[in-house]
């Protein structure tokens, strides 16, 4: 390929530069193309995707019941040791003993939001919440107990 001559080089260079300037000039004059989202201002209207993985939560119903049986499947499934389940023995009405959760401890600081615990859960007791603003001043606040105090296992969940 022949090298373009001196003046052609200048012409081609200037043309390519003007092409770029035309582009930036276009966006400078078309302000509707602006992509910025005003984050803390749009908090009220900000909708996260329904599958968004922000943190692990354990939904409770109106009767303060959850579906966690304390089977520890999530604890085994977690690659980082994020979940610790402390169980207790509950005595049922007919005198039988039954394993139930005492505390569902969730270390948010260790969690990588990989979703493996939710997939592993046989009773759909935990799911991913949409909260993503997790900054705290003290690391210990990131250790959360997911089951509400006094909550019980939903009837019929084994």
């Amino acid at each position, binding site marked *: 390929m022949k090298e373009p001559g001196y003046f052609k080089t200048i012409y081609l260079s200037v043309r*390519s530069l003007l092409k770029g300037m035309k582009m930036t000039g276009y966006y400078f004059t078309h302000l509707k193309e602006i992509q910025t989202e005003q984050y803390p201002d749009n908090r009220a209207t900000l909708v996260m995707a329904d599958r*968004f993985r922000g943190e692990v939560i354990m939904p409770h119903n109106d009767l303060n019941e959850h579906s966690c049986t304390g089977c520890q499947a999530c604890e085994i499934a977690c690659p980082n040791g994020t979940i610790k389940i402390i169980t207790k023995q509950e005595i049922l009405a007919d005198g039988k003993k039954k394993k139930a959760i005492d505390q569902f401890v969730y270390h948010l600081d260790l969690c990588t939001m990989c979703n493996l615990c939710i997939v592993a859960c046989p009773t759909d007791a935990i799911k991913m919440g949409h909260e993503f603003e997790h900054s705290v001043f003290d690391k210990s606040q990131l250790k959360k107990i997911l089951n509400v105090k006094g909550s019980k296992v939903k009837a019929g969940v084994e």
Partner: protein
Amino acid sequence: MSLMGQDVLTEDGLFMVNIGPQHPSTHGVLHLKVWLDGETIVKIQPHLGYIHRSIEKMSENLSYRNFIFATSRMDYLSAHINNEACALTVEKGLGIQATPRAKVIRIIMAELTRLASHQLWWGCTGLDLGAVTPFFYAFRDREAINGIMEETCGARLTMNYMVPGGVMYDLHPNFQKHTKDVMASIKKNLADYDNLLTGNVIFEMRTKGVGVLSKEDAISFGCTGPTARASGVSCDIRKLFPYSGYENVQFDEILATGGDCYDRYMCRMAEMRQSVNIIEQLIDTIPEGDFQEKTKAVIKLPKGEFYQRVETARGELGVYIVSDGAASPYRVKYRSPGFSNLSALSQMAQGVKIGDLVAIMATIDLVIPDIDR
């Protein structure tokens, strides 16, 4: 006199500068010791390991379901493809295949990841060469892809969507519509990319004939991906060792012959168009059916060794699992593309200017966690 209290020159009369670990254009914590003669680079010595997190050692203690998540953190721009490589290796060990639907989903997701990765690379290349504006145009399109990822996988960067046997859950109902919209806008915006950088005379001067890597060197250094394809090495794993149904897709392997920064750039630009092409072929014909093959709760691979290659946005990622029959791998080796590509840097940057070093680093598309693992 400053800089004079001690002898700043080395014994050979060279000027040693540390580029990195904190430097705007090393894309992370790469440390290059550079010996300069004036502005000309005489010798380069990469120092790695600032972000070594021993993912290989960690994987030895994780089950076959769990170790996949960590690979998202290696090459975080190709997180999907990394996960896919692990899932494919486990599937190979189990002797199963993903369901047809999962295979197509995997290809679409992998190509979306490649597009997003190349877009970020394009923006960073502009940034490294001193043009700040491309970065924002690149992010405009990348955000749209990330939105799709978030909708279907639940995360924007470290998706962990692949599991042995398929994908974690089915596609989001809006997936097809959104993907088509995004593809249409990306095709339109690729013209912007060309106007802003590709044809620009300053950009061409900065990249043409800079950092030439010969074909023999590219093979010898184990370079893969666009870095090697720009030198004329045919190394697209999607073509050579098709996995996950790439054999049924029409696309071209992009090859160039120059091996300089400009060719590497053009390879990636063409690859973006190929990825759009692949996605458009598949998006309307995703087969119905299960998204995941049934696997046992505890996966145990038989005794043996399993090696799986995939083509990430940067090149060939190999996952080498040695199993002793237990529930977690005995040894995992990730053959990361960036590690080999980086080793060719010192060859490419021989005798170039500092500005060229930045251009070379930009066009071999370094992702440091991928190199350090």
